[in-house]
């Protein structure tokens, strides 16, 4: 069942009098619980598509339908609420808050998503997720004392702690070495399958495609092919 549908999405950037169309009418849908990879050469528009789908920038035209509502018609506050409660994000860099411990990073995300859990339940949830990403032994550590792989695992934990419907991952392994990249991808796959989270991921790394359920190839702002 499709949880997320992108319908004829276009994105045009204007630089002075020059108009450049980055996305030329994209259509795709994400099935619940599946991991979909967006692949393609640099400049093909895959990151732009991901950020439009995630509500981080508006489309010039088209529809982004999530749970039956077109996000393009939502106010910025409504989009923010969706991002906070229904979406999770993993970026190329972990982007952790430097003055919060690992545990506090996750508690913050629960606060932002307006979690109904009580404080002690939130702590339990944090412990559970940290165990899943094998970072429970570092819960009092600050980001500055973590390795790149550890940071990315905390970022993944932060992205799923509030049980989002959709996880957006923009090159989540690009800053990691080969072994750590595989570990992180395995972690994303296991967690999203366990928690039934739909994932849209941008990647350059072909090795990572073995962990995904479907692949969408993009070129020059258009979808070339859908492959399983």
């Amino acid at each position, binding site marked *: 069942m499709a949880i997320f549908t992108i319908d004829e999405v276009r994105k045009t950037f204007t630089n002075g009098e020059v108009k450049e169309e980055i996305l030329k009418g994209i259509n795709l849908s994400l099935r619940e619980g599946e991991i979909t990879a967006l692949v393609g050469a640099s400049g093909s528009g895959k990151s732009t598509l991901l*950020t439009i789908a995630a509500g*981080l*920038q508006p489309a010039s035209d088209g529809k982004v339908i999530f749970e039956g509502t077109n996000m393009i018609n939502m106010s910025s506050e409504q989009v*923010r*609420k969706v*991002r*906070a*409660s229904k*979406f999770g*994000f993993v*970026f*190329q*860099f*972990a*982007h*952790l*808050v*430097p*003055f*919060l411990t690992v545990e*506090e990073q996750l*508690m*913050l*995300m629960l*606060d*932002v*998503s307006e979690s109904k859990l009580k404080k002690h339940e939130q702590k339990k949830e944090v412990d559970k997720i940290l165990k899943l990403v094998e970072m429970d032994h570092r819960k009092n550590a*600050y980001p500055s004392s973590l390795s790149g792989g550890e940071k990315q695992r905390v970022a993944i934990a*932060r992205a799923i702690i509030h049980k989002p419907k959709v996880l957006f991952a*923009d090159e989540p392994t690009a*800053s990691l070495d080969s072994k750590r990249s595989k570990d992180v991808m395995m972690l994303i796959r296991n967690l999203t399958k366990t928690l039934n989270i739909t994932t849209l991921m941008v990647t350059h790394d072909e090795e990572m495609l073995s962990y995904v359920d479907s692949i969408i190839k993009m070129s020059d702002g258009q979808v070339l092919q859908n492959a399983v």
Partner: protein
Amino acid sequence: MNIAWKEIKKNKVRFMILGSIVFLVSLLTFIISGLANGLSQDNAALIKDLPNGQFYMSKDANETYNMSRIDSSIQDKMLSKQKDAVAFSIQMGFLNDRAGKQQSVAFVTSTDSSLFKNVKKGEIVLDRSMEDKGIKIGDTLTNNQYSGKFIVKGFVDQRKFSHAPVAYINMDAYKEIYRVNEMQLIFVPGGDSTQVAGLQSFSNNQFLNTIASYKAEQMSLNMIVWFLVIISGMLFAIFFYMMNVQKIGLYGILKAIGVKTSALFKMMWTQMLFITVIALVLSVSLSQVFNMIAPKGMPFSLTTDTTVQLSIVFLIIGFIGATLSGIQIKKVEPLQAIQQGEI
């Protein structure tokens, strides 16, 4: 979660630097304000300590009290009409002490009134600062223009005019020293301004500003105080601007994961409030200690009212400074922050 406090805890040094700058600027402001108040008391306590009312001087005095001469018929009429009204004169002069040393004083004489010390002929009541110059009750003082002698009858606290201690003398003695028969001023406590032919009326503040040295002195000192307040506001704006520039990436990521812009502003305001309150508590305490240990001759007066007013102004200016610098937070695009790389 109070992320504002978490950031302060993790970046103690950074916030201590801002706090110490605010502390130093506010301490300097309190001390200069204390000096301004002290000098103002030293210059015009005689007038400042009078209740609110109206001062009258002759129109042709051109707003200069010591040029004023109030016609005795007008004076009699006003004093009989207004029970609490008092006519008085002030002139700078000298007293010779027992050792023949000249002491500068402001001679004051008045009609019968509870607002001024009324003394008999041959007597004098002085401001208590004269005690520090070795003058005691019972001492005999002289004046070169006065044929008689003055016997010191007592001292009063905080009675100064034009930085000189006040010397209350009898009207006859005053008339002999300055060879005048008319009084310079009439004061009507609590009265509204009423038109009196040949006289010009002034409120307490308006009258204080007719004292040339008072106006110039207070203007300069108040200008310093307000410059310091503005500088501290700018310091807040600059410091938070620098911190915000460093945190643009962080704000972008926080916005991307759904943190409200208002929550980021609250975080900044909390930090501003925390730093300012601590800095103000320290500077107020230290300025009060200074108030207690300041040398006796130093005119320093820092009242609770002034302290509270300045503290509120500091908080408001800190809030404005931080908010102005925080406009960047509103402009931060999550997408830009994500594309900028690691924070």
